[in-house]
C-alpha cells in the first residue's frame, strides 16, 4: 500500500468535516474522489498532504507512520524530521496552481529538487526538460507563469510536482479554475500519467474523466464515504440513493 488512512476525523470549530474516513491507495491505482461542495473531499486531500492536521486517525505512507491516534484519542504526528521523510512520498497539484510567480517555468520545476533534495543540477535539468516535453511545453522553459495560460500553468505545476519523483500524486480539483478548452489539455496529461501507471488521487468535478480514467471512484458526502468502487459500477449502477441524486444533477 502506498497510502493508508484510517479513522480520519477532522473538525473545524465544532463542524465535523471528516467523520471516520478510511482510504487506501495501492501502487498504480488512480482514485477519483467526487462529491458536492463541502463534502470534505478537499479536506481529505489536505489532511493526506499534512496541510491540515487530523484530530484522530492514522496516516501511513509506504508503511511508514506519519500520524496515529495516541493514548488520549487524539492524533499524534511523528517528529518533524520523520514527517519530512514521509513528505517525499507524495506530491500535490492545487486548484489554483500556486506556481512561484518570480521563478521561470524551468526554475519552478528545478528549484525544489536542487535545493531541497540536493540533487545534481545537470541531472535535474535534464529531467525537467524531459518533463516539459511530456507536458508539451518544452519551448516555454524560460517563460514566467504570468505569461502562460491557466492550462499551461497547471501543466507546469504537474511537472513541478513530478520532478520530486513522488510515489503518489494528489490533485485538488486541478481543472476547476480552467475554462473547458484548457480543462481538456490538463486532463489529457493526467490521463497520460494514468497510462504510465502513476499512482494518483484526483478530487474532481469532471465526471466523464473520473469514469474513463480512474480504477476506483469514491463518492463523498457530509464527511463520509457514501459509496466507492469500480467507476462503471458507481456511475452506471449506483447503490446509494444519495449517489443517484448527486449524479442525476450532473447529467442534466
Amino acid at each position: 500500500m502506498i497510502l493508508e488512512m484510517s479513522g480520519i476525523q477532522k473538525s473545524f470549530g465544532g463542524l465535523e468535516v471528516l467523520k471516520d474516513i478510511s482510504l487506501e491507495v495501492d501502487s498504480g491505482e488512480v482514485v477519483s474522489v467526487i462529491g458536492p461542495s463541502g463534502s470534505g473531499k478537499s479536506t481529505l486531500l489536505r489532511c493526506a498532504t499534512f496541510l491540515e492536521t487530523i484530530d484522530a486517525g492514522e496516516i501511513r505512507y509506504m508503511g511508514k507512520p506519519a500520524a496515529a491516534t495516541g493514548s488520549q484519542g487524539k492524533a499524534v504526528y511523528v517528529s518533524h524530521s520523520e514527517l519530512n521523510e514521509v513528505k517525499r512520498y507524495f506530491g500535490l497539484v492545487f486548484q489554483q496552481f500556486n506556481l512561484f510567480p518570480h521563478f521561470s517555468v524551468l526554475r519552478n520545476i528545478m528549484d525544489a529538487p536542487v535545493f531541497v533534495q540536493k540533487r545534481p543540477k545537470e541531472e535535474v535539468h535534464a529531467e525537467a526538460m524531459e518533463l516539459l516535453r511530456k507536458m508539451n511545453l518544452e519551448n516555454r522553459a524560460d517563460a514566467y507563469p504570468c505569461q502562460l495560460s491557466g492550462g499551461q500553468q497547471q501543466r507546469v505545476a504537474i511537472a513541478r510536482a513530478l520532478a520530486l519523483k513522488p510515489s503518489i500524486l494528489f490533485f485538488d480539483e486541478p481543472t476547476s479554475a480552467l475554462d473547458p478548452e484548457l480543462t481538456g489539455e490538463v486532463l489529457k496529461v493526467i490521463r497520460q500519467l494514468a497510462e504510465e501507471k502513476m499512482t494518483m488521487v484526483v478530487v474532481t468535478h469532471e465526471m466523464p474523466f473520473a469514469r474513463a480514467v480512474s480504477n476506483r471512484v469514491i463518492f463523498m458526502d457530509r464527511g463520509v464515504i457514501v459509496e466507492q468502487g469500480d467507476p462503471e459500477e458507481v456511475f452506471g449502477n449506483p447503490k446509494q440513493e444519495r449517489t443517484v441524486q448527486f449524479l442525476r444533477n450532473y447529467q442534466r
Partner: protein
Amino acid sequence: MSFSTMLYTMGEGMLRTCAIFILTILFSLPLGLVIMFLRRSRFFIVRTITKFYIAVMRGTPLMLQLLMWYFGPYYLFGMNIRGYRFAAIIIGFSMNYAAYFAEIYRGGMETIPQGQYEAAEVLGYGKAQTFFKIILPQVVKAILPSVTNEIITLVKDTSLAFTLAYNEMFSLAKQIAASQTSFVPFVVAGVFYFVANYAVAFTMEFIEKKFDYYK
C-alpha cells in the same frame, strides 16, 4: 562670505546629512523586518508589546523621540552623553523608521496568497527557505512604491537632527542665512534635497523595473 566658501561649509553638512540618511536606511530596513515578525508573532504578549511600540513611534513627533533618545539616558541613568549625540540621532531615526517599515512589510506580507506557503510546504521547503526564497522577493516587489515614499520622507526628515544641535546641512544653512542675512543658503538647501530625492526616485524606479519581469 563668498558663494564658494558657503558651498564648502554647507558641503560638510551635506556629508553629515548623507551619513544620517545612509546609516538610518542600513539599520531601519532590516530592523523593520524583525519588528514585522514580532508584530506577527503567535504570542499575544509579543504582538501587543510590538503594536504598542509601533503606536508610540508613529504617534509621537520624531523630534520629540530624538530628544528622548539623547537626553533620556542622562536623566534616567545619569549616563554621560558627551560624544553620544550622533549615535542618539541614528538610534532615533532607525527606531522610528523601522516601525514604519515594519508596517509596510506587514502590508506586503498580506498580499501573498496562502497557496504560496502551501506549495512551498508540500515541495519540502523549510520555513526559512520559504520566507527568503519564495515570500520575501514577492513582498519586496509589492512594497517598493511605499518604501520609496518612506525613503524620500527620510531625506527631508534628516533636517530634524538640528534638534540635537547636530550640524547637518540644513542647520548650517540656517546659521549662514542668519549671519550673512542671505536667502541663498536656503535655495542651496532646497536644491540639495530636491536633487537627492530625484536620485532616490530614479534609483527606486530602476529597482522597480528590475522586478517588472513578472506580475
